[in-house]
């Protein structure tokens, strides 16, 4: 957990320093108070003492208490400020780290786990810091201070105090050994529960259509019971701790007195009085020592969960970014709008079979290159290598003559307009979604947004809405239909004005008519741009300058529609499945 402290800023360390100073001051004030207290006690018990003396000592004591209060409030503010800053910094670091990670690393963590790590886990650590730092600093200071006051007073009593501390330490260590692993499990089960809830929410229509509410609820119940069972264990382990602590304190004081009684009884008259005084002082300071340990124990009670959370945060933060950022920019490019694959193979880590095998092709400026093939043949994976969502396992991917791995990632992506298979929209307005992101140029003007919407065949339905460009888009675009979402995400790519377009099976969600019109408009609009299309429909790609046919990750055909019909049996089969014989002839 302490590794996370590197996220405290210099200013926060300064605050921490002030907090420590204030705490020392406050402990000093607190330990002064008993002196005035005993003075008042003596004065109040002594007949004929001056009223003004009592008031004076009372005033001093109140001044100490007031000073201590002010110091504590200041410490409280500093601690709150440090912990709030810390939480803000760590969650920002996490958020940005996740944005930098490659898709395969993100998949390894699972999205729902990353969400819990960025929010819930950070809260856990923050709570610990807010409560923990004060106690963690204050209790050792108090303990040491109190110990120096009783040091060497009496070995029997010292031994008993040491024994009590020993018992407490053993209890804390035992709990750490048995409970810490359970806390790890609790967070894991929380992830699981989170995942099941997400799944139910995202598939709500399917769940209802299948009358599977009970099924989902049972699944949830199962995870919920597991979580509750594990949590109960940890809660009950701690139920044991606090009464034990008090028991130790009470018995320590009791035994100090009882042993004291024997010591005093055995001592000679002169020693009796000083022994009695020592006993009272010893018991009160021994109590202070134990109390400090009790406070430390409280820290340890909240620490395991925070520690597990911290570890989970570190796991993310310390994940190696496989995609190393390069240095080259668009200015270094040797050509404009070209894409070349040189003997590219790709396999997911741990997979037996590569997804892509030895793919080579090139696309020149202004060309349209299409990829077609059966489901699972590797088309999407292939185009995902171009914006560097993954890195090729073997071979090279070149954009504008430069290996994609040598580019600064943002520079590489500035060149590309990517539209994913599944339309992704963000909470905001239509305009904010179209203007989304940054392409290294000036922000798109409204005319540009309208033009993009027009090309993407989305202008009509957007302009019909009362708020037009300012119409609200809900999280994930849930207030638009599938086709509308897809057209908006195409418009987003167009507004970006890229050199290279990548349409990853984007058009399948559109009806034929929209698809046809859209592509025609797009062709007009993207005359100079290179277009890479992954498609299912022959109609979508018939006119491409180059069609690449994939089968099981291998390139089994490359050429124009007519050539492929003759030379490539796989392509011919695909075409036959979609077009009637006369349509094939006409083509």
């Amino acid at each position, binding site marked *: 957990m302490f590794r996370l402290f590197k996220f405290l800023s210099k200013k926060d360390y300064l605050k921490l320093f002030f907090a420590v100073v204030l705490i020392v001051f406050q402990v000093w004030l607190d330990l002064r108070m008993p002196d005035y207290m005993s003075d008042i*006690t003596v004065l109040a*018990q002594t007949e004929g003492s001056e009223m003004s003396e009592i008031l004076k000592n009372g005033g001093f004591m*109140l001044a100490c*208490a*007031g000073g201590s209060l002010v110091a504590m*409030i200041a410490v409280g*503010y500093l601690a*709150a400020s440090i912990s709030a800053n810390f939480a*803000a910094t760590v969650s*920002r670091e996490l*958020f*940005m780290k996740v*944005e930098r990670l490659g898709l395969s690393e993100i998949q390894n963590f*699972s999205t729902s786990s990353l*969400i819990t790590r960025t929010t819930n886990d950070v809260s856990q650590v*923050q709570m610990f810091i807010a409560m923990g730092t004060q106690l963690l600093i204050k209790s050792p200071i108090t303990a040491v201070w109190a110990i120096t006051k009783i040091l060497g007073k009496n070995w029997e009593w010292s031994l008993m105090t040491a024994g009590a501390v020993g018992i407490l330490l053993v209890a804390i260590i035992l709990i750490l050994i048995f409970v810490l692993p359970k806390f790890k499990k609790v967070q894991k089960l*929380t992830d699981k529960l*989170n995942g*099941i*809830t997400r799944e139910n*929410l995202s598939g*709500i*229509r*399917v769940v*209802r259509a*299948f*009358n599977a509410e009970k099924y989902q609820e049972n699944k949830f119940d199962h995870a919920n019971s597991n979580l509750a069972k594990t*949590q*109960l264990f940890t*809660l*009950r382990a*701690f139920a044991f701790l*606090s*009464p034990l602590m008090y028991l130790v304190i*009470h018995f320590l004081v*009791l035994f100090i007195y009882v042993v004291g*009684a*024997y010591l005093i009884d055995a001592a000679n008259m002169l020693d*009796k009085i000083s022994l009695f005084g020592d006993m*009272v002082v010893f018991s009160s300071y021994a109590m202070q020592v134990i109390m400090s340990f009790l406070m430390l124990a409280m820290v340890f009670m909240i620490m395991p969960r925070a520690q597990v959370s911290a570890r989970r945060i570190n796991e993310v933060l310390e994940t190696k970014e496989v995609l190393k950022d390069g240095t080259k920019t668009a200015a270094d490019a040797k050509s404009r709008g070209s894409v070349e694959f040189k003997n590219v193979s790709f396999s997911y880590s741990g997979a037996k079979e590569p*997804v892509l095998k030895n793919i080579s092709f090139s696309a020149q400026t202004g060309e349209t290159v299409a990829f077609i*093939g059966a489901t699972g043949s590797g088309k999407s994976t292939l185009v*995902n290598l171009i*914006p560097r969502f993954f890195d090729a396992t073997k071979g090279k991917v070149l954009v504008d003559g430069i290996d994609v791995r040598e580019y600064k990632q943002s520079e590489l*992506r*500035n060149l590309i307009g*990517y539209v*994913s298979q599944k339309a992704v929209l963000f909470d905001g307005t239509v305009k904010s979604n179209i203007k*989304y*992101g*940054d392409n290294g140029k000036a922000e798109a003007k409204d005319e540009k947004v309208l033009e993009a919407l027009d090309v993407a065949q989305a202008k009509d339905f957007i302009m019909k809405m009362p708020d037009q460009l300012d119409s609200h888009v809900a999280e994930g675009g849930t207030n638009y*239909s*599938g*086709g*509308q979402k897809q057209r908006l995400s195409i418009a*987003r790519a167009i507004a970006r004005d890229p050199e290279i377009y990548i349409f990853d099976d984007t058009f399948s969600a*559109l009806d034929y008519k929209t698809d*046809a019109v859209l592509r025609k408009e797009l062709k007009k609009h993207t005359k100079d741009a290179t277009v890479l299309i992954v498609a*299912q429909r*022959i109609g979508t790609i018939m006119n491409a300058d180059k069609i690449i046919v994939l089968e099981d990750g291998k390139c089994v055909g490359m050429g124009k529609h007519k050539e492929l019909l003759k030379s490539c049996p796989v392509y011919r089969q695909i075409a036959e499945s979609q077009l009637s014989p006369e349509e094939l002839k006409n083509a």
Partner: protein
Amino acid sequence: MPSPFNVEKPQGKDSFFKNIKRFVSELKSFNFVILFALVMAASSSILSIIAPDHLSELTDTILAGFFTGVDFNKIREILIFLTVVYILSALLDFLTSFIMAGVSNSFVKKLRTRISKKINRLPLRYFDEHQTGDILSRVVNDVDMMGQSTHQAFSVLVSAFTLFIGTLIMMFITNWQMALTALVASLIGFGFVGSILSKSQKYFTARQKELGRMNAHIEEIYSGINVVKAYNGEIESNKKFNRLNERVRNANLKSQFLTGIMMPLMGFIGNFGYVAVCVVGAVLAREGVISFGTIVAFMVYIRMFTSPLNQIAQALSSLQATAAATERVFEFLDAPEMPDEKDLSAEVHAEKIAGKVDFSHVKFGYKKDKEIIHDFSISVKPGQKVAIVGPTGAGKTTLVNLLMKFYDLDGGAILIDDVPISEIKRSDVHSLFTMVLQDTWMFEGSLKENIVYNRKNVSDEKVMGVLDKVGLKHFANSLPNGINSDISENDSVSAGQKQLITIARGLIEDAPLLILDEATSNVDTRTEEKVQRAMDELMKGRTSFVIAHRLSTIKNADLILVLKNGDIVESGTHKSLLRASGAYAELYNSQFSQ
């Protein structure tokens, strides 16, 4: 669409008490156990009021024995008595804590279960308007918060109150003037703390709310990460994140600070009371009203009196965070549910359904002021295959949503075998349909689990058979553990394969009516041909509704409806519609236009 967060409710003392009251009333089912635990907590407090008295008796005995020798019989007596008291008190504390741990744990578990059930009882409309991330934050963060206070706050409050009242009684019995002094001194402090508490509630509510908002943003970005990356959207999303994060930070700072100053404040009040008691005691002693022993006794009492105040203040401030969490959890649990269906008596049995479906003057809009389907009427005979085509946004999927009773109609009726679906239970309507959607949805689990889903007694052979039909047999065999291999939303299963799995899931369900909403849009056409054969087989004798972009798949439909802006603009068979050379012909020919 209105964001749920735009409505800021006034926050303050009232909402704090309202929420706590709600929280306590939700604990009702644990009444007896909690009462038992509270009685134990109170008993333990009473024991701790007794103990100091006997401890001072111990010192008195030692003092008294200075000249005559210590009375060890008495010491032994006290030792035994206190040992019993301490052990008993520890035991009671342990049991209270143990029981409350169980109570809070099962309370939290029940709350989570309720939320999970609630999800399935809310109308779909609710999810159109609320963010997944925010709902998740309620299930995890807010429920957690409630659990923590059930565990601690209540037992602490009760034992502290017992100690407070017990000491108060003891004080008044000993001396009323001194008791009054102690009471007034403490009450000044209490009023002070109360005023801080009432002002600070809004910060705790703000904290939970801001956390929810940040959660929603994180959810959105993490799940659309490839687009964020492709568009260099990091800068923009970071800007938004920083804005939200800053608000969380501010709310955190304020609420944390207010929690933090409670304890020192109470400590000060304790010392203040101590001084007040000593001063007043000294005055009274000089006047001869009280003895010195009384002063000593009050010095102990005032400590015992203010330390529970300290605990109460702490418990109350932790309850503030709870109140905020409670509000959010119950806001969700109290959201209006789908209409109750207990009174719906229409009996439908999947095996007896002929499959006649009528839409009669159906009107519908997702929002009240925006009608999407206007006066839609068709009649479908049993066993017919109906294809719905039309440009995106024409309302095709909306029709499916209505047919499945996902949404209630704004006007008109949908009838199945002449029974309006408004009179059939939703679950019965669902059981009549096999539905395959364009949105592929998979969950963490094995391939088999994803296909079998909630059906029972499905053999492996049947699963393999279905997989063969959709062309996934090879895929299944290539997995390390065959159909028992884990696949999930995140694995490298392609969109097309996911869709095939979804179709397989539909094929295993055997219902009299069939809905295919773009079921094969992500599948390549060669595979589709194969799947199509399987589905044609399935459609035999069943009334089916097919939405498709690829018109080749619906050429053989009995009835093709061409939809535009929620109205039927054309209807007929493939041949008759082509001959009419209207909208359908145009759509059809656009497939081949260059």
